């Protein structure tokens, strides 16, 4: 290598100067451009957490780094990931949805109720649940943009309303806290093959993993390559400035709330079909995991900045931690402490980024 470096190399500088202005684009170093990416921190974090749990793995044959282990942590991460991407887009748009967790339960329970009580075809029930979720999301969004109250408060109220409804209605109809869905129901088999089945035969990866990857890719394209994505950044970054140049701020936010609720419905449908039933307490508390994944993935709590890939990496970190702690034979309660520390570090890094990006010089 040292021999090769003695060869005289043409300096890149005159080339840049001669080729005109556009060449200066390439003049921004790869490192700087990489550091500008919101998901970089999450990528480094995911690698570090992976290496940590690979090294403390106490299972015979080092399960964590095997394909069977991969099946485990992708399973854990997949539904978090589907939701984290939605929550991240909403957060970039400047809003929160604390009802995102409980909505997975409400949707799954509605699906169970329609199938077991109304004897509806599973596919019809799925469509009905998705429409229902769209309406709840739209209601959240409309309340936020109309009242101009913080979405934190509005969706906290939705969260508690739905939480009560979930348990109340389930007990009223079944006298238990659970809807059981029979696999004999019409349309169940075909629906389960899409939402709650597995692929790659000996390892049996969950379908949700494919959904997660597809949603991350689509969300990334929408966010970075489309007009709507531009509006998401703008309404979260400065809603007044966005409105002044003609961005439909309210519509953009309402659509994001609807997307979040519909994502929750998809996850609820997945859970209900996979486990052939759903608990009335399903999803309560999970909203914080989604927010953690989004923030660890580089989203700013104040909006206007973040990425879908980052949120997915955040979900992956949660998956690593959930499975890795079991494989390491630690008390599983350390899981929460671990995520708390990860969140602290991520917020610290994000704040530094924001100061650099947004500090206005007068």
């Amino acid at each position: 290598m040292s021999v090769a470096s003695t060869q005289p190399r043409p300096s890149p500088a005159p080339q840049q100067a001669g080729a005109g202005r556009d060449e200066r684009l390439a003049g921004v170093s790869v490192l700087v451009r990489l550091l500008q990416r919101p998901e970089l921190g999450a990528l480094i974090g995911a690698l570090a957490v992976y290496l940590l749990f690979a090294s403390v793995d106490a299972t015979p044959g080092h399960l964590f780094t095997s394909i069977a282990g991969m099946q485990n942590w992708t399973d854990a991460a997949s539904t978090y990931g589907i939701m984290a991407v939605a929550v991240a887009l909403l957060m970039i748009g400047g809003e929160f949805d604390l009802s995102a967790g409980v909505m997975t339960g409400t949707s799954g329970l509605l699906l169970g109720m329609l199938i077991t009580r109304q004897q509806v075809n599973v596919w019809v029930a799925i469509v009905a649940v998705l429409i229902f979720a769209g309406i709840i999301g739209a209601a959240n969004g409309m309340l936020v943009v109309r009242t101009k109250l913080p979405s934190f408060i509005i969706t906290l109220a939705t969260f508690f309303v739905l939480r009560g409804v979930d348990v109340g209605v389930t007990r009223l109809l079944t006298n238990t806290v659970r809807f059981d869905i029979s696999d004999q129901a019409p349309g169940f088999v075909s629906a389960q093959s899409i939402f709650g089945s597995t692929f790659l035969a000996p390892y049996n990866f969950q379908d949700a993993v494919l959904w997660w990857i597809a949603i991350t890719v689509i969300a990334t394209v929408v966010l970075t390559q489309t007009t709507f994505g531009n509006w998401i950044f703008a309404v979260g970054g400065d809603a007044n400035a966005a409105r002044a140049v003609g961005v439909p701020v309210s519509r953009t936010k309402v659509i994001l709330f609807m997307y979040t609720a519909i994502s929750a419905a998809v996850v609820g449908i997945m859970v209900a079909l996979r486990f052939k039933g759903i608990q009335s307490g399903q999803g309560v508390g999970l909203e914080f995991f989604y927010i953690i994944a989004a923030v660890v993935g580089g989203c700013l709590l104040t909006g206007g900045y973040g990425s879908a890939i980052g949120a997915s990496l955040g979900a992956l970190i949660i998956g690593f931690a959930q499975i890795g702690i079991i494989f390491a034979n630690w008390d599983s309660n350390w899981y929460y402490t671990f995520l708390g520390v990860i969140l602290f570090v991520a917020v610290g890094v994000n704040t530094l980024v924001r100061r650099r990006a947004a500090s206005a010089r007068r």
Partner: protein
Amino acid sequence: MSQSKNGVPLLEVRNVSKYFGSVIALRDISMQVHAGEVTCVLGDNGAGKSTLIKILSGVHPHDEGELLVDGKSVRFGGPREARAAGISVVFQDLATVPLMSIWRNFFLGSEPTVGFGPARRLDTGFAKRVMREEMGKMGIDVRDPNQAVGTLSGGERQAVAIARAVYFGAKVLILDEPTSALGVRQSGIVLKYVVQARERGLGVIFITHNPHHAYPVGDRFVLLNRGKLMGAYAKHETSLEELTRMMAGGEELERLSRELEKLAADPEMKQVARELREEAR
């Protein structure tokens, strides 16, 4: 430029009044904006500058009088209609989204796309190229189009907003207090952009309360006070000192002192009137 030669102003305000309930926000305002000229609107807080901008930019309809664009009477139904007629406002604080890149800000709300249906996506290459060209015309060489606008200086951020308005077909550019939050150096940079916009044949309305910023770049000066037109001058009809004095309420004080003098029979009142006139200078 041709408009100013044949004498038809780009934008004309004729005897416009605006009421908010019983409050008279503007009364009987007239002004003209010509292509390739800077019209400065000067006034203290509460003079009605903001109301005037809002009428010109289509936010509020006017209650009396006429608004003429290229000599034709118009009535705007909203900001979009005003923008379609070529009237663009650059607000001091609402101009740009700090966390977004320069090219994203430049095309925000009017994004260029390629492809159709679900394959429709932003034409990123076009957006970056045009932004660099347009910023280049303002004398700013953007090295990295992905740079966040928040990392630019205050003057440069105004430049992004001005370049954007010009690119999207503004004929009349309204700059709302573009220098009020800036330091001396950055204000100077913004004033340079004001002159540049004028040189490119735009009609510029420069709203400010600082005659020191207005006088060097302005061709016409319109002074507002408490919703009324206090005076309209071409540059050769006035001076920086006179503008400054009028901005400080000097003319009103002087008139008041003359009235007092007429009324004053006793020497004590004469003394008060004399003191008032002194103050007016």
